[in-house]
């Protein structure tokens, strides 16, 4: 088995979840790397979209902005923010790929602020950007986040991006489009889905080298467990080779993992 770091693991797992022919909106960094890996490995016709207007580029290198010229490199279309978001709202986009500063048991995300006072936050973060829209309007939201008790919290400081809100049918009742919501949460320790009824975060597989106990003790809320919890398949030689040589040779994303 090859050695790999946590970021490489998360990107490889995420890539396996993106099917050929699907549409996915990604941001810069790890989500983009995952989409590029999927495109080069098993999903040559994965259609990658960027919220500023890039449609189906063949990415030469990873963009540094979701609006930079690489996002339309050999693309099918250079479009607009409204057009991409309206395509999502119309139901044409399968996956949104997001991260965040905090996540709760229903897959709601915070990327706006840390602290208790909106007018004077301890730390101001960028805000929704397109994240809230994409998680509202795409069919399935995928989240990649390193796991610890600060990030996986029982209570968000600010709900920027809707998951299953308060669980059960609350998402649909709120007015958000039917049949949408968080699909997978991929961490350095495990892969989670969501229970069909309660909509609580449920561990599907544990990553190599981690125990059930560790996964739970690095999460600030009680996790549910699937009936069968497998070990996540580690990154293969081919996946790692593509990731290191063709997608992120500079180590801008995969070099970051500690």
């Amino acid at each position, binding site marked *: 088995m090859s050695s790999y770091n946590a970021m490489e693991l998360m990107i490889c797992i995420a890539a396996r979840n993106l099917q050929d022919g699907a549409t996915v909106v990604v941001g810069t960094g790890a989500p983009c790397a995952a989409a590029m890996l999927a495109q080069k490995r098993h999903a040559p016709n994965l259609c990658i979209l960027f919220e*500023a207007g890039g449609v189906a580029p063949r990415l030469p290198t990873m963009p540094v902005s979701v609006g930079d010229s690489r996002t339309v490199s050999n693309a099918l279309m250079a479009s607009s923010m*409204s057009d991409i*978001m309206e395509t999502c709202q119309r139901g044409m986009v399968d996956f949104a790929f997001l991260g965040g500063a905090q996540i709760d048991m229903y897959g709601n995300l915070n990327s706006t602020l840390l602290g208790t006072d909106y*007018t004077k936050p301890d730390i*101001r973060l*960028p805000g*929704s950007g397109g994240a809230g829209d994409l998680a509202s309007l795409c069919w399935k939201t995928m989240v990649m986040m390193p796991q610890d008790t600060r990030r996986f919290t029982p209570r968000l400081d600010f709900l920027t991006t*809707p998951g299953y809100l308060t669980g059960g049918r*609350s998402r649909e009742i709120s*007015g958000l489009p039917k049949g949408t919501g968080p699909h997978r949460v991929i961490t350095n320790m495990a892969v989670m889905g969501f229970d069909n009824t309660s909509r609580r975060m449920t561990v599907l597989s544990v990553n190599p080298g981690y125990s059930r106990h560790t996964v739970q003790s690095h999460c600030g809320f009680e996790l549910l467990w699937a009936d069968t919890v497998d070990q996540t398949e580690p990154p293969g030689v081919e996946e790692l080779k593509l990731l290191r040589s063709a997608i992120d040779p500079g180590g801008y994303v995969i070099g970051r993992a500690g």
Partner: protein
Amino acid sequence: MLTLIKHKNDTHVSLPEGSNPLFMDPDPDPDAARLFFKTKSRALVSKVTTVKAAVSELVQNGDYIAVGGFGTNRIPTAVLHEMVRQKKTGLGFAGHTSTHDFQILVAGKCLSRVDAAYIVGLEARGLSPSARRAVEKGTLIMTEWTNATLAWRIKAAAMGLSFLPSRSLFGTDTFTYSAAKTVECPFTGKGYTALPALFPDVAVIHVHECDIYGNARVKGVTVADQDLAKAAKRVIMTTEAIIPNAAIRKNPENTFIPYWCVDAVIHVPFGSYPGNMPGLYFSDEPYLKTWLDKEKDETEFQVFFTRQILETENFMEYLALNGGMKTLSDLEDLELLAGKEGG
């Protein structure tokens, strides 16, 4: 019907109405907008001017500003700098993926209120310490939005309407701290968030080429600029090149913004620097990193910012200060290389 949702832990309340201020200078009244646009000049006359004159004449203290492009892509840097030099204050700002543009105007203390969809960050490059300090101290009045809802607010204005319905924002604190409301569809009974039209006082847009009247073309992603040019009361346009009107007339299908939207045309080569200009030059990543590094220390940053913007007379001096043609030619190479590698 829309339902009031309350989290078990009581903090997250999704109300049918956002509680933060709607900055009223972008008046959503469509008849008020029509009365304004009734008076806007339709004359096919040259609008060529200078950055100094455009900012002095078209931007008043307290105006609501929207910046075209996407933070570090196709941004009108020269005009942003000039707003700082002319000490424009009390400006409102539409922050849809605003990155280096927000960084400049916050550091120049130009802004008082912000519609925030994406602020204080520079995407993959990290957060801006200076912009964070300004927001965390509570020096700006803020209202939350998302990139799509801000784009649609501008679109509503471009359409001459007072709002557009959307399916975003539901269930979030972003909604609670927005100025959105909710409406019920008269046909289906579905609930929608209602997004008030945003008519900025001034839009500043950088383009690849336009004629002296402001008929403009761009390459690459268009973000929200076409709607922005229509929605804004006044448009300042900087351009990489001024082309003959005959070239516009030969291929009218390529016109992205028509002349009647535009109030000022200024020839500013490399005008998006240090940002990216699709097909021409890439962003100056080392420079943007230097800026972020300098921001860590407030005093050191003030020296840097003063030297870069307040002590440069104009955009040409600023470009020269940062490496001039050598830097720009390298960025041209980088951009062409990025385009070719995709195969």
